[in-house]
């Protein structure tokens, strides 16, 4: 199966994601990241109403030291390698970056983001800047797991449902399971960090290449013992 087929099979398309994650209630994440320091009631992203965003938390344990994981993630240009709905991230300097994510119907969504917290080998948090089409924020925290079991990686992504015509289109396709994509992105991060590659069954030999419909795979899948 190709990547496209897989995502179709899953019935979700993601725009965004994890880092690319669409947006967020920047405020929620902002508060979480900054702890008490955030000023109550004052959202750093004016266009996102407090309490209206979606928020996902996903965790994975990776058999590598926190420092190594932190270093890789900290270079945001690496993110599209495992966040498959990101097209690119460009570093603008001074903690700022420019993100480009695939959107439905061949479109793309772009925004600028700023790192709002950065603790070496422990934590990176970012959020979209004012004026982003889809306000979003994310953080990743690296905590050593007990007894040499590697590092627990916790990703929090939030975004505000986008407005406008493209927003509606995105929301529709996102509707299904955007948190699924965050989970997939995180799994790919683990695979890449632990094995150096992304396991795949792409370009495999198969008889009479079957056409996948969005639900075809699982329909076939769950078909009885016939």
């Amino acid at each position: 199966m190709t990547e496209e087929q897989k995502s179709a099979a899953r019935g979700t398309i993601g725009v965004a994601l994890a880092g690319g994650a669409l947006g967020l209630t920047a405020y929620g994440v902002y508060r979480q990241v900054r702890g008490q320091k955030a000023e109550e009631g004052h959202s750093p992203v004016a266009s996102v109403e407090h309490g209206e965003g979606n928020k996902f938390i996903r965790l994975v344990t990776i058999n590598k030291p926190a420092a190594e994981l932190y270093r890789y993630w900290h270079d945001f240009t690496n993110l599209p390698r495992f966040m498959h709905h990101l097209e690119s991230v460009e570093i603008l300097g001074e903690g700022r970056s420019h993100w480009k994510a695939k959107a439905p119907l061949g479109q793309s969504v772009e925004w600028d983001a700023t790192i709002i917290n950065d603790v070496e080998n422990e934590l990176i948090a970012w959020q979209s800047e004012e004026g982003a089409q889809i306000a979003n924020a994310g953080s990743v925290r690296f905590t050593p797991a007990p007894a040499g079991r590697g590092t627990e990686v916790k990703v929090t992504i939030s975004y505000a449902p986008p407005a406008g015509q493209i927003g509606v289109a995105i929301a529709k396709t996102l509707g299904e399971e955007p948190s699924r994509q965050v989970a997939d992105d995180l799994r790919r991060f683990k695979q890449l960090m632990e094995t150096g590659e992304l396991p795949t069954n792409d370009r495999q030999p198969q008889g009479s290449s079957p056409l996948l419909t969005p639900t075809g795979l699982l329909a076939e899948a769950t078909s009885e013992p016939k």
Partner: protein
Amino acid sequence: MRALCWYGKDDVRVDTVPDPEIVNPRDAIVKITSTAICGSDLHLYDGYIPTMQKGDVLGHEFMGEIVETGRGVTNLKKGERVVVPFTISCGNCFFCQKELWSLCDNSNPNAWMVEKLYGASPSGLFGYSHMMGGYAGGQAEYVRVPFADVGPIKIPDGLADEQVLFLSDILPTAYQAAENGDIQPGDTVAIWGGGPVGQLTIKCAYLLGAERVIAIDQVPERLAMARNQGKAETIDFSQEDVIDRLKELTGGRGPDVCIDAVGLEAHGMAPDAILDRAKAALFLATDRPHALREAIQACRKGGVVSIPGVYGGLLDKVPFGAAFNKGLTFKMGQTHVQRYLQPLLEKIQGGELDAASIITHRLSLDEAPDAYKTFKARKDGCVKVVLKP
């Protein structure tokens, strides 16, 4: 190339399909010289395993010659002969490093499918459904082997394909089944299923110190093989009550170790087995655990039930109360093949283990569809089929 493809229940065909190619740095391409049909393939053939797609290439027991390697594979060279484990494992994750190879965290690209069912995903497998990775299998002329730098074992000159082919799956499976039984001196080991796995488990149980081995099946040729090759006592479940007979053979105690080498498609004469078939058809339960129920019921107090037989879904009427109140230990799972390759290769070389003797049918890959029929029907004394591409 030519490859055996799955098209549905009782429908496999030899098709011309594209050759596999190197996709990832740690891949290798193997030109297959020998490949076998496994009892696990029958679960696919019978439509018991979900997430199969028409055209999927089957086969997970194979060996051959390296013809190409990715740039990350430095330990294998073109022309070297290898046996490939059916479990695909990265070697880097927590589980691989604990030698729990069949539980590899990273080798299943479709892990999300299994997570929905099981909560977490085991390793990817060759030719064994999309939820187990969707990897094309080795009943073919060529196969792509991911993580080839950690899986395949090199075969020294002087050993024939047939002597070592079963290192890919059923020999380590039989060995692990016996090892999981924690066999103590004086122990009686009862084995349900006289298929290839059961036959080899008899040999491994003796190797690990069993005093007596009792094999249970209903196919006359398989019972005969268990007696003649395996030196086991046998029970024909179509003729005798298995639990009564086991009691009789063990002074009323029951076997110390009970091994279910049948899995989810157990046949039975008893009402529970007939009910299972009806329920599976109606989706009230997915597996038919007749052999497992007997194993639990027969096992002596404090004994071990070891389960190499494959289960996929929900089991109905498993006597858990009996298991609990008799203080049984359960061990199960797909085999951690890589763990056993070297030690078992040495046992083959040293003449301690002869796995090839269970082969009854040698055919070409083109004859695979007929071979599946024969193996499924257990016709012509068929126990194990080896195919030559």
